[in-house]
């Protein structure tokens, strides 16, 4: 991951400037199994389990040991002879995290280093349509909420936006513009209201490339 928190100071979350280029921040392993196929069985039903270990906090760039275990239910239904797709993922993630201590924090800055436990629910849904050979246009929504040991619901957010996907003989790419439509929970002084802007961004642009081999 790369990070630049220059000029950002949020009590309990962002303790100071950090800048670094691409570096390894964690490892993840996952398994997925399809119980029903959307092509053969009318509806696709799958389960995924993902476990990860991270040693850098993705938000602050500070040392933070984080263990995650996520289970997901995957649903998919194909329409119009497999040219229109609807997919929904429901995920539940349990997290154990422990921050490393930081020297020289600003006076009164809250930086708890006791272990914290979090539980996160994610529900996402989307549609994609094959509008031309190799090209798919889609729209997707993701609702996510997280509960934490001390403060109850720490955050929630709703992201939504369009996707454009190209799939060729050897590779595929997906571009998604994903703005945060609504959000809430923990906030920092002076932030825009109606959004969660500590652990999530206001705008997200994703570009993914895959290569088939």
């Amino acid at each position, binding site marked *: 991951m790369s990070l630049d928190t220059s000029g950002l100071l949020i009590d309990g979350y962002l303790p100071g400037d950090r800048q670094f280029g691409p570096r390894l921040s964690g490892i993840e392993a996952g398994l*997925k199994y*399809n119980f029903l*196929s*959307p*092509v*053969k069985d009318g509806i*696709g039903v*799958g389960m*995924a389990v993902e476990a990860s270990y991270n040693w850098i906090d993705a938000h602050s760039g500070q040392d933070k040991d984080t263990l995650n275990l996520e289970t*997901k239910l*995957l649903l*998919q239904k194909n329409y*119009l*002879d*497999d*040219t229109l*797709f609807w*997919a*929904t*993922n429901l*995920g539940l993630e349990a997290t154990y995290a422990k921050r490393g201590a930081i020297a020289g924090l600003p006076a009164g800055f809250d930086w708890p280093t006791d272990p914290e436990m979090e539980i996160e629910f*994610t529900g*996402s*849904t*989307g549609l*994609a349509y*094959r509008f031309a*050979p*190799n090209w798919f246009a*889609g729209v*997707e929504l*993701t609702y*996510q909420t997280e509960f934490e040991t001390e403060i109850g619901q720490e955050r929630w957010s709703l*992201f939504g936006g369009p*996707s454009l*996907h190209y*799939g*060729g*003989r*050897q590779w*595929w790419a*997906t571009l*998604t513009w*994903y703005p945060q439509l609504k959000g809430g929970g923990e906030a920092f002084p002076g932030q825009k209201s109606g959004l969660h802007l500590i652990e999530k961004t206001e705008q*997200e642009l*994703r570009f*993914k490339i*895959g290569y*088939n*081999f």
Partner: protein
Amino acid sequence: MQNNWFIPLLAAPALVCVAPSYAAQYLTIEQAQKLMFPNADGFAAQAVALDARLKRAIKERSGVAVRNDSQPVWRVQAGGKQLGWFIVDEVIGKHEFITYALALDMSGAILGVEIMDYRETHGHEVRNAKWRAQFKGKRAGEAFELDEDIQNISGATLSCKHIADGAKRLVALYEAALR
């Protein structure tokens, strides 16, 4: 972390390790004709215009939508007698089209299926002769369903399904327009 639902959507088949095989033209129209009707001495092009009425009739018989406005069909002859029909069709694999040929006898039963062009990196197992042989003798009214009367190939499910649907659509075309 935001979910990317395109992952299950477009990568649902389990991981498979196969040798890459893509963008391959295995047979030209002439080669497929010769292979499927070795005794024929003539192939007369007789494209079928697929108007709204005919599309509706085929969809009603097969349950498969007709997307093109014309179907390339050849009347197959030998010694002044008709042997059957040779049809070229396209179906979507995963991202790319698969071009295949279907041979029918005079009663509308399938004589064979040949893959002419396969353009995907995965799923080329549909070229397997044993898999294609499952279509021999099938005619309109049969299921053409994966894991019922057509065996699926894991890792090539979309290609299997769409070729089975295509064959089902073409035997319905025979009933509606060629019989």
